[in-house]
């Protein structure tokens, strides 16, 4: 069966030019099938990215990547609502839109669309509802284990996707913790989240790495690496694998790595060893998929 490698949306506040150049390089060099483009975390960042989106989309399309426009996960005011309305109205059969909030699934009803990991799809009843609504792919919530994924994959009317690489999006809030960590408020945030292109490290009082803050989003400190579970996922019928972009590792190489894992060309231990080598000092996790605490890591397949 064919594997679909998905490059998820950039979740961090990268400099707009860096953001553009990242996608250009993905278009030119990365062995991925689908690329998600657009702000999912904080509406204050969208005005900076918007001018670059047409060029990025054009470059990706020219490189035969399927492009999906991502949307905000948390929508609280008219400006944010209108932003999502505009994007959902701009999608067509060639360029789909990813819903990250129930509101966007409603706006996309009856037309093909993707659903991101911020929409709660934990069971068959919800999966089937969204399939009837027009969803053509569903990226599952990050906290599901293999049993739940297996039950969802069984007889699924819509292809399911699992995020296999990157810091896990664990929570989203009205409050900006990046601003708060700098004694600022969200309204006067000075876009301070741009200082941390992979998130701001959060440690416990005794200095253990714990979480990472990305504006209004809270992420895992550890990087999820599900390479050891890719073949299990394939056995369950999952063939869409999402990579979440980071600045501190070459995502073209990460894509190549997961392609080889998905094709069975290298085993998971080799894959994890390579990743660890590229990301000096990074901690990894894969506990959720094994039904354990999310932060734990075990390289047993």
């Amino acid at each position, binding site marked *: 069966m064919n594997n679909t490698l998905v490059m998820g949306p950039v979740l961090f506040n990268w400099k707009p030019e860096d953001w553009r150049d990242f996608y250009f390089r993905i278009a030119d060099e990365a062995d991925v099938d689908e690329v998600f483009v657009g702000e999912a975390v904080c509406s204050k960042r969208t005005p900076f990215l918007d001018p670059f989106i047409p060029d990025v989309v054009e470059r990706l399309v020219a490189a035969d990547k399927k492009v999906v426009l991502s949307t905000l996960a*948390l*929508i*609280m*005011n*008219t400006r944010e609502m209108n932003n999502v*309305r505009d994007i959902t109205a701009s999608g067509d059969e060639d360029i789909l839109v990813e819903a990250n*909030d*129930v*509101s*966007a*699934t*409603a706006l996309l009803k009856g037309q093909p669309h993707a659903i991101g990991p*911020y929409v*709660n799809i*934990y*069971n*068959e*009843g*919800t999966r*089937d*509802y969204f399939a009837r609504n027009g969803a053509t792919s569903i990226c599952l*919530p*990050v*906290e*599901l284990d293999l*049993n*739940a994924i*297996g*039950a*969802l994959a069984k007889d699924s009317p819509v292809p399911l996707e699992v995020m296999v690489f990157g810091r*896990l999006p*664990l*929570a*989203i*809030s*009205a*409050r*900006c*913790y990046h601003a*708060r*960590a700098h004694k600022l*408020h*969200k*309204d006067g945030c000075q876009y301070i989240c741009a200082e941390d292109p992979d998130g*701001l490290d*959060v*440690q*416990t*009082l*005794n200095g253990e790495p714990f*979480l990472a*803050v990305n504006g209004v989003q*809270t992420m*895992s400190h550890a990087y999820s690496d599900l390479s050891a579970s890719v073949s299990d996922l394939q056995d369950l019928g999952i063939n869409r694998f999402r990579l979440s972009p980071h600045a501190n590792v070459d995502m073209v190489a990460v894509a190549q790595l997961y392609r080889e894992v998905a094709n069975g060309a290298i085993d998971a231990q080799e894959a994890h060893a390579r990743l660890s080598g590229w990301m000096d000092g990074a901690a990894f996790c894969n506990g*959720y998929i094994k*039904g*354990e*605490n*999310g*932060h734990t890591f075990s390289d047993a397949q």
Partner: protein
Amino acid sequence: MKKLELVCPAGTPAALRAAVDSGADTVYLGFRDATNARNFPGLNFSRPELEQGIEYARSKGAHIYLAINTFPTAGDPEPWHKAVDDGAALGVDAVILADIGMLDYAAQNHPDLRRHLSVQASASNPEAINFYQDAFDVKRVVLPRVLTVPEIKALHKEISVETEVFVFGGLCVMAEGRCSLSSYVTGQSPNTNGVCSPACDVRYEDEDDGSMVSRLGDFTINAFAPGEAAGYPTLCKGRFVANGETSYLFEDPVSLNAASMLSELQEAGVTALKIEGRQRGKAYIAEVVSSFRKSVDGMESGAEVENDLTQVAEGQRKTAGAYQKTWR
């Protein structure tokens, strides 16, 4: 304007009676299993207890809402479906649901059973709320604790369902139903297990210097100097280090108290006020419910009644939370 409805928590039959006796218009509660978002040991209702609770509430003119607001486990929806079926059979006034599959199930199988949308669905905007109304005939939405009062007012211009807002008690700082912090640390999630920062993963450890640390799973959540009052290590209310500074990064150990904003909330279009705390004892429930009863009754006569619930609030401190924009 219609008088605000006071919706109060109960985790035990004694708490239910205390809430009703203290002036609750409605009591919300859950079954004793993972189908509700306060799945704590020794808490919640058996079927016979619910039946008696409904009888007691009815005798005093109060209503009962049944919270079935976790997300059913894939491969095992039965306990959730049965909870809706039993709630309908016993005659609850409404079910509070979060999962779309569950709303679909309830709408198809119990069309006459009133459906409310749980805060766990995190419906924070008009398109989402109107979707739940159009698709599942939801009559009321419990708003997530992310909106300011002006945002609630603006929202009401674009929706026609009732809204219910939290006014007192524990304060989720993350959008509800969209937080996996607890499962990242403990494996137990609000969405699937109905618990956050579960007690079975909590440890308090005495240090050599007389201080104490509180831990959740493998992680230190807070530390307390000798004599300092130690709070429960709810993950998002801990002290952490970021950007070289130690702080309550996500939220201070505070409770929500919006008692001084009831008129504003009513003017914004809100129908019902919700008090958090199904895990609380009957004395707490009685005190908080009576205080809000007085405040709501006081609004009728034009007198805003400030409550004095500071002593029962978490950390003895209060906040108006997201209702004020500066909170963000």
